[in-house]
């Protein structure tokens, strides 16, 4: 269970990205977070696995206070939380299988890590993960020869191989065409039902969000303005979530500038 209590996130430049967030997400829910770009969707998601630090309130994942974690603790938390990105974030120069195998790396002994040797068991697990997203036949193809949809599936397989209990997806279908986007969403839904994984997804396409998610959260200006079942969402609620409040535009840029700082190597 993920629990936000009065969570606040303020960027070093003073921009308030999240304000008074109170939220409970149960295991095996399929949650879609919708809202304008710059509303704080991405920040909300990244606080869960401590890719971003929160500056106020408390956030717990499975009764572990995320805020208290350091170094090893953070990495242990992240092992249990998979993450999918808009730009796939794969090593494009190596094979699909090798990309999936990366998810086993943190648990390997030092010498195998250095030499890059994987056991047969790990390879089988990785192949199973690829099979689950339907690209088993591409296992030995280089990633840069795959289409966008296939690449996103590789990323999904990499996350599945990690066997997490939660999957966070940050705009997973934003750079895919509508048909592929639908297929990837189907994959998410199947994984959610088959493996009882919690799936939290940031998404621009409202129709896709309503069609696949069981719960929808609307974020506006860093605050939750709607939280309910997908079938409850109507025109009025949508226009409320997407209502462009004045004076917000200038701040959007400030926040977009702040995000890359957090994404560096360290």
């Amino acid at each position, binding site marked *: 269970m993920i629990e936000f209590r009065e969570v606040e996130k303020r960027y070093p430049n003073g921009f308030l990205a999240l304000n008074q967030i109170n939220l409970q997400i149960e295991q095996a829910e399929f949650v879609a977070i919708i809202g304008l770009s710059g509303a704080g969707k991405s920040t909300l998601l990244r606080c869960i696995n401590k890719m971003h630090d929160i500056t106020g309130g408390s956030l717990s994942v499975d009764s572990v206070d995320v805020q208290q974690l350091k170094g090893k603790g953070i990495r242990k938390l992240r092992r249990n939380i998979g993450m999918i990105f808009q730009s796939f974030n794969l090593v494009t120069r190596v*094979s699909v299988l090798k990309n999936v195998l990366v998810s086993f790396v943190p648990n390997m002994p030092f010498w195998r890590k250095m030499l890059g040797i994987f056991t047969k068991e790990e390879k*089988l697990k990785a192949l*199973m993960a690829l*099979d689950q997203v339907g690209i088993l036949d591409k296992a030995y193809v280089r990633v840069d020869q795959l289409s966008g949809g296939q690449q996103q599936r590789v990323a999904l397989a990499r996350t599945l191989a990690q066997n997490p209990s939660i999957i966070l997806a940050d705009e997973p279908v934003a750079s895919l065409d509508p048909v592929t986007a639908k297929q990837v969403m189907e994959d998410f839904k199947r994984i959610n039902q088959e493996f009882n994984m919690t799936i939290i997804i940031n998404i621009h396409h409202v129709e896709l969000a309503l069609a696949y998610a069981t719960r929808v959260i609307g974020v506006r200006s860093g605050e939750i303005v709607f939280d309910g079942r997908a079938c409850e969402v109507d025109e009025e609620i949508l226009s409320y979530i997407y209502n462009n409040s004045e004076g917000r535009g200038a701040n959007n840029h400030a926040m977009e500038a702040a995000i890359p700082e957090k994404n560096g190597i360290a």
Partner: protein
Amino acid sequence: MQWKLLSQKKMVLPNDKEVLEKRSIMPLMLLILLLLTFLSIRITGFSIEVIVNRISQFFVIIQQMIPPNWTYLSKLWQPLFDTIKMSLFGSVLGAICALPISMLAATNITKNRWITMSCKFILSLLRTLPTLIVALIATFIFGLGTMAGTIAIFLFTIAYVGKLLYEQIESVDMKAYEAMCSMGLTTIQAFRYAIMPQILPNYLSTSLFCFEGNVRYASILGYVGAGGIGLLLNESLGWRSYANVGMILLMLVCTVFIIETTSEYLRKKLM
């Protein structure tokens, strides 16, 4: 290809699906690399011990070069200008001659396969021989002096610019060229108006780049008697007057730096 010959291992998934695993060629390549390194060490007599014990000799020479002999400077201008002239003349003439040759070597302009093949062969043959060896041969034919150096640079420029140019011509958009041919222009006219505009910036930039490199090469051509500053370099090295060598090298570094900076600026403007 070659790694198809390596046996493929069959992986059976728990749900009875089968995948053929490709063997990594990394270990094999590493082994070959190590073997070649070992062989090379044997052949060349490479030894860390000698380096550790005697590398100080290298720095002794460098110490003797500093400070350079400034009085030697006055004698350097003429040979330095000779070097620049050699590379300039050779580069300009070479770049001009490379144009018709690369036209003949481009398969989309010249339809006769024999002509294109032989032109390409000549270009790659010219590129094979190091400039210094061409200069050496040239000194036997044209006598000692700047002439031999100029010829060597000229030939290298043709080969270098020619190759890059025909590759460029072959990748050019042919629609305009065909349109002009259909308007009744001759091959050369159509080339001038349809293809030249597309390749010109790149052609000039390549030529400039080649000129940059040529200045560097020209500085050593004197070593085999082909004129320029290399002649003095050879002399000073022979007499072990390292302060003079230091002066020559300082001059060279400055000249090359100035020419490179200028040409880099010009190339950026061209692009």
